[in-house]
């Protein structure tokens, strides 16, 4: 064996991964996915127009229905004969003590969480019912109307904080809308 001074060492070359084909694949894939990416998701709330009862049987069935649920959205400008203050008024034969009034919150917005809780209370007593009438003030904004629709149609995340199993549970999805005083 040769002494260490005479030994020849081969330099071990580091093996590098060939990443170029992968890069070319990524360069092709990223623009393709960018074109199909959805950054703001547009969703729909369906509001089919209610069918008019035409046959005698249908009319009798409607007349027999004793259940009613009305949500009034009172704005500042529209005259309100119920309370005279803006907020929600919920009226139903499910309540023994008459209509319930939900005033604006401290932030001066409609109390949709409170309305959602009232809707849940009515739903518990009338599980099979699905219809609600929303009577809105003339100057109620579209955002407030959509929040009211959400609160009457399903359990909101704000209400389901302590009971996550309730989140998204259907309340009254069949909505009829009308204008107050019309």
């Amino acid at each position, binding site marked *: 064996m040769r002494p260490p001074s005479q030994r020849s060492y081969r330099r071990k070359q580091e093996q*590098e991964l060939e*990443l*170029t084909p*992968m*890069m070319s694949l*990524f*360069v092709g*894939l*990223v623009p393709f*996915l*960018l074109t*199909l*990416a*959805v*950054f*703001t*998701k*547009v*969703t*729909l*709330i*369906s*509001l*089919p*127009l209610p069918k008019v009862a035409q046959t005698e049987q249908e009319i009798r069935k409607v007349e027999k229905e004793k259940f009613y649920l009305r949500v009034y*959205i009172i704005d500042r*400008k529209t005259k309100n004969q119920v309370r005279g203050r803006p907020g929600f008024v919920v009226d139903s034969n499910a309540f023994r003590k008459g209509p319930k009034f939900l005033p604006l919150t401290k932030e001066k917005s409609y109390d949709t969480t409170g309305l959602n809780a009232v809707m849940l209370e009515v739903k518990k007593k009338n599980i099979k019912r699905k219809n609600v009438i929303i009577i*809105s*003030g*003339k*100057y*109620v*904004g*579209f*955002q407030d*109307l*959509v*929040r009211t*629709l*959400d609160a009457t*149609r*399903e359990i*909101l*995340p704000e209400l389901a904080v302590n009971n996550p199993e309730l989140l998204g549970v259907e309340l009254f999805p069949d909505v009829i*809308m*009308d*204008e107050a005083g019309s």
Partner: protein
Amino acid sequence: MSRFKSKRRARAQTPQLQITSLLDIMTVLLFFLLKSFGTTPELNISKNLELPKSVSTRPAVYALNIAVSKNEISVDGESIIALQGISKETKRLPQAVFRRDPDLIAPLFELLAKKRSYAAKLAKRDPLIKFKGDCIIQADQDTPFHIIKKVLYTAGQAGYLMLNVATLSTKDI
């Protein structure tokens, strides 16, 4: 001397591009884009309009678009009526758009009726096309209810019975 130089040249390696970090970025970007990948139809949101936010999760469909922006009403991008006023309390439709019925927006009704009869004709010719009366209403979040109500009523009178309201989802994409 010349031999020494040539030895040094032979040892010098060609510099290679370090693409590992670039690949890391690409991988992260790829996962992000795969997460936000969507195959549902994208609605063309009209200009000068902020959609209201909702918890609804129903995906968009292809249908006739009625847009109520901050200053006008349009159908599939075609402007029909200019709105008057700026705020929720002052915004209103010009009186000239109402004829006999105080809730029916006449120019909108005429255009919708035209589009409906065209869609019905197409459905008659091609059995694969069905006219279901679907219609999407995109309205600015500050639009007062009395305008929304009139638009809904006019669409219903023109034969569009499956009305949908476009919103921005507040749930995670």
